[in-house]
């Protein structure tokens, strides 16, 4: 958690801050007030969803990659001949998976009805973040199961 708060939280926290500040700035300008006020809930729901999804993805992959290197070798890699290249390969796979899941989170924002109130906002975000967490969990469980079978 400490590691997450220092390094991995940069992107999700900056997204959430940006999402919270921009409407406040634009609501002050009279020309933009109507435009922003109409879709304010959707705006906040979108940023909350994106921030939540990215935080979950970053935290999961940082936890997966931060397992003790010797354990990694025993659990993840079949051979110890070239551990460094195997670790680089694993990081590359993790980045690819991160990107794919992030694109799913982004794509999910255009699906469904726009939220019209606070309760709708909660439902909108929870559905999308829940689906992403479920996918991540299934992926972690599948990897663990496959590796356990090889032991």
């Amino acid at each position, binding site marked *: 958690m400490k590691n997450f708060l220092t390094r991995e939280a940069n992107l999700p926290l900056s997204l959430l801050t940006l999402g919270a500040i921009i409407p406040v700035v634009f609501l002050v300008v009279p020309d933009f007030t109507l435009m922003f006020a109409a879709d304010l809930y959707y705006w906040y729901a979108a940023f909350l969803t994106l921030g939540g999804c990215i935080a979950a993805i970053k935290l999961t992959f940082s936890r997966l990659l931060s397992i003790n290197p010797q354990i990694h070798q*025993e659990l993840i890699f079949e051979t110890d001949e070239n551990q460094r290249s195997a670790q680089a390969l694993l990081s590359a796979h993790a980045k690819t998976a991160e990107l794919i899941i992030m694109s799913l989170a982004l794509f999910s924002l255009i699906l469904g009805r726009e939220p019209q109130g606070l309760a709708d906002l909660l439902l909108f975000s929870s559905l999308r973040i829940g*689906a992403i*967490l479920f996918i991540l969990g299934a992926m972690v469980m599948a990897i663990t199961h496959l590796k356990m079978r090889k032991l």
Partner: protein
Amino acid sequence: MLNTLTYLIYLTISGYITLVVGRTLNQHGLVFLTNHLGGNQRLATAINSLLLIGYYLINTGYILLVLNLNTSMAVNELGSMLRFLSLHLGLVTLMLGIMHMVIFYVLANWKPTNVITTVAEQ
């Protein structure tokens, strides 16, 4: 307003249940896994933490998805709020129980022959 309050109460209670159950299973599961892996504590800890990450992700995802079930149920009085909470919290605890049984079944039928041989050789 009562809708939002109910959702927040549901999220808090189910999150707390998931956290407590996860911690308990993690503590007691480590002993079971270490015994299963022939005393290889490091490997048992690694598998245990992987299982814990998966458990938290799946259950948190499930809790958030279940929140979207039956959204037409209007929560406008205390009775409907209790009905909503009991239905949704019941589904969450049922899922926790099923997941615990499935993981236990898989681990009970798992025979890691290579690891036991390696430890025995040492």
